[in-house]
Each structure stands twice: as structure tokens, then as C-alpha cells.
């Protein structure tokens, strides 16, 4: 896990619908626009569930950052050549 201002990279991230995993990515890179506080994440897909990808809402989760929140709402998502690119809203408040 590497934490830099407005950038997070990590080994494992998940796109989830409730507790179910729609997509698991590895080697993800999350970039945050300081002005809008919105983020973009990209990563290589390890597994995906075609049904869960049709469900809403979806949330991007970084399990290793759970203590700090580590959850962002997915606003837009695309999958091309086994690569996930998603636009995320501001990080959700810790539950």
C-alpha cells in the first residue's frame, strides 16, 4: 500500500454491491482530484461477476484501509481488456 497526497495504490481492491463482490482488482491506482474530491480508479481485474455488475449501488472498497473508511461510491464504471476504470464520488464516511 502506498499513500501519497491524492493518490493511493494498492495490491487489492473490490467493487462491491452490499457485501457481495462484483469485481476484484489487483495493482490498482486511485487518483483524487483535490478540487472536486472525486476519484478515478484503475486496476487489473482478477475476477468479476456479470450479474452483480448490473446492480446498484456499487462501492469501491480498499480492505486494507477499512479503519480509515476506504470506501468510495462508484459513479461510472467501464471494463476493457480485463482492465477496470471507474469514476468514484468522494470517500464515504466511516460506518
Amino acid at each position, binding site marked *: 500500500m502506498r499513500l501519497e497526497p491524492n493518490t493511493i495504490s494498492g495490491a*487489492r481492491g*473490490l467493487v*462491491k*454491491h*452490499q*457485501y*457481495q463482490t462484483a469485481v476484484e482488482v489487483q495493482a490498482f491506482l486511485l487518483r483524487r482530484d483535490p478540487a472536486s474530491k472525486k476519484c478515478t480508479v484503475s486496476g487489473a481485474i482478477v475476477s468479476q461477476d456479470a450479474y452483480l455488475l448490473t446492480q446498484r449501488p456499487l462501492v469501491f*472498497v480498499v*480492505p486494507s484501509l*477499512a479503519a480509515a473508511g476506504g470506501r468510495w461510491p462508484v459513479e461510472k464504471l467501464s471494463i476493457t481488456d480485463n482492465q477496470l476504470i471507474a469514476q468514484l464520488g468522494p470517500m464515504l464516511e466511516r460506518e
Partner: protein
Amino acid sequence: MSIRVRRPATERLDLSDGDHLLVKTDLTAGEYRELMRAASRPLSVTATATGASIPTMELDPIAAGLATVLAYLLDWSFQDADGRKILIADQPPEVIKAALAHIDSDAYMEVQKAIQEHQTRRAAVIAEEKKTRTTAPISVRTLVSAG
């Protein structure tokens, strides 16, 4: 037509000493299949009277308990010896399995018992839902007029 997909829901199961588990309320078909696969072990091939061979499976009681726990468990309040929460939420199955292997055996048995009781309760609820969901047979006259 009827709804055949449940919304993913969770339940909190209270344990002794103020601890708790967060579990899936119900399993999906895929999760149930995985539970059955993980709870079974292959037996040697059975020969039939005709000489044909049929590979068979049997329930492994040790594996079945762990498979049930892994199928339902999402999170818990357990802490390690230093008082840090043992992180299992959103972790891969092998991480959760390793955490379950390191807790006290009494704690594990309490987890397994709580989840098995939850599974039994949900089976009863679902059986009751099926009874109330059954609708009266639609008459031929109704079908014709609906068309």
C-alpha cells in the same frame, strides 16, 4: 412472475462477552453450491451391478462446519492478544480461514454454533415464506380472459 433474487442482507449475531458476528442473512445459489462443494469429499469410485463406475461424494463433517462458517461470516468483533481487531471484513477466504484457525477452539465452536443456529432459523423462515407465497390456482376462465 415472482422475484427470485433476495436483496443482500446481513444479521448481527450476539455472542458471549459482548462479542458479535456479522453474517449473511441467506446464501445465494452460487454460495450454497460452493458450501456444498467445500463440505464434501470425493469417495473412491463406486462400481455398479452393470460394471459401470460412478464417482460419489460424501459429507465431510469437519469440513462442513468450517464451510458453513466461511459461507456466512462477513465480520466480527474479535481482537488479537494485543487488543487489535482481527480484520476479516472483505478479506479473501484464505485470510478468514487463517483467522478462524488462530482463535481459541472454544471461540471457534461458539462461532460455528451461532452460525449453524442462524442457518436453521433462516431455513424455518424460508419454509414459512413458501407456504404463504403459494397462490390459489388460476382458473382456465381467468387465463382465457387475461389473454
